[in-house]
């Protein structure tokens, strides 16, 4: 199986590759359009700032590549946020795959949400063998609002989209690569998708 991990100016892509290695799956970290298009699956990771990340994707033409992909694509954390329509972080238009907005948490509790939290009503292919009792690792100050593409929510300060899915595009706000064995289950579910 060929997995492409999108290389861009955001965050720790190595940890995603390490997680795949532990599952015995090879991957390549790349920003090469041909390699991305030819991969069976694409992972779009990211920890960082939305404005500068979108700018970088546009400069490299990766924004257009991403939205035109037909194979399963998995956005993680900032990756999920960039797949939404608009982010308050940097007040930037994003990829527009999910028709929802990314907003900053109101400062009524500790921000960022940093730590393990459970999902509410996780559903769909990404969450086979996952229940509301399972916790996942979240680190974020911005959240995607709940919308028709929401396939799991999480409650921190307010309910938000912990995961989104539309057609071949999948995304989670939490880090499956850092979420122990429950995270590995989500990664395995993604890797097993047949499309």
């Amino acid at each position, binding site marked *: 199986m060929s997995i492409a991990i999108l290389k861009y100016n955001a*965050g720790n892509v190595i940890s995603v590759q390490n997680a795949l290695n532990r599952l015995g799956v090879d991957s390549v970290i790349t920003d090469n359009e041909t390699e991305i298009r030819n991969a069976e699956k694409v992972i779009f990771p990211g920890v960082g700032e939305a404005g500068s990340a979108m700018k970088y994707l546009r400069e490299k033409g990766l924004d257009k590549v991403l939205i035109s992909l037909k194979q399963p694509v998995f956005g993680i954390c900032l990756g999920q946020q960039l797949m939404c329509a608009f982010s308050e972080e940097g007040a930037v238009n994003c990829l527009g795959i999910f028709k929802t907005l990314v907003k900053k948490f109101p400062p009524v509790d500790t921000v960022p949400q940093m730590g393990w939290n459970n999902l509410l009503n996780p559903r769909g292919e990404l969450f086979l063998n996952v229940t509301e009792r399972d916790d996942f690792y979240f680190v974020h100050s911005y959240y995607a609002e709940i919308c028709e593409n929401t396939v799991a929510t999480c409650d921190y300060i307010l309910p938000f989209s912990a995961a989104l899915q539309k057609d071949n595009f999948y995304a989670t706000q939490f880090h499956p690569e850092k979420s122990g064995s429950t995270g590995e289950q989500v990664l395995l579910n993604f890797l097993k998708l047949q499309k």
Partner: protein
Amino acid sequence: MAIKKRIIPCLDIKDGRTVKGVNFCDLRDAGDPVELAKKYIEEGADELVFLDIAATEEKRKTRASLVRKIAAEINIPFTVGGGINSLADVSAVIQSGADKVSLNSSAVRNPYLISEIAGQYGNQCVVVAIDTKYVNNEWCVFVGGGKIPTGLMALDWAKKVVELGAGEILLTSMNNDGTRSGFALDITRQISEAVGVPVIASGGAGSKEHFRDVFQQTKASGGLAAGIFHYGEISIQDVKNYLKTQNILVR
């Protein structure tokens, strides 16, 4: 349910081995860091912290390879600290697979470093470790492994580092460290109530009740310990099972 309180084992690393002291002195060997890390993950650790307590220029390369080795093995977040003095140091440990860096002396020497790292890697990547000691009725900040007084007060410094972009504070009471007499509840409460970012309490954990106390009596998001976990006197799972009986949410 909601966000869980975190139990975080800390590995103090010297020359590639885990060590542990009392009140920051008298170091003892506590084992191979990678093996300990794997054991802790099985026991339910929520995160790991690695502090390179003898980080020197010539040892940086060894550190990067140890971080790589750890990152390849573990499936939970981990923080690396000790001798992080520049963006280049941060880049080296992040590229080796660390999720966060922890600054201590270098943040006091050059507070702007906090903002630089936050600007490039995000606030969530920057932990500021504060070593504090109760001297003449005040919680003072010490650096250099607890040897050098800074003239800073812990609460003021905590607020300052958050302003500069720290995403988390790791607060260690030197009075409590290694004593197993419990966390320093008063300063942990003051700081966790005063800042808007997560505070991890450290220093003094000796029993599962100490974790209950810090979570019930302060707003700490996590409790960090080293000695009690290394020598197997109490397991992380024991602590978590107990906290559940006390209605404290843990994973």
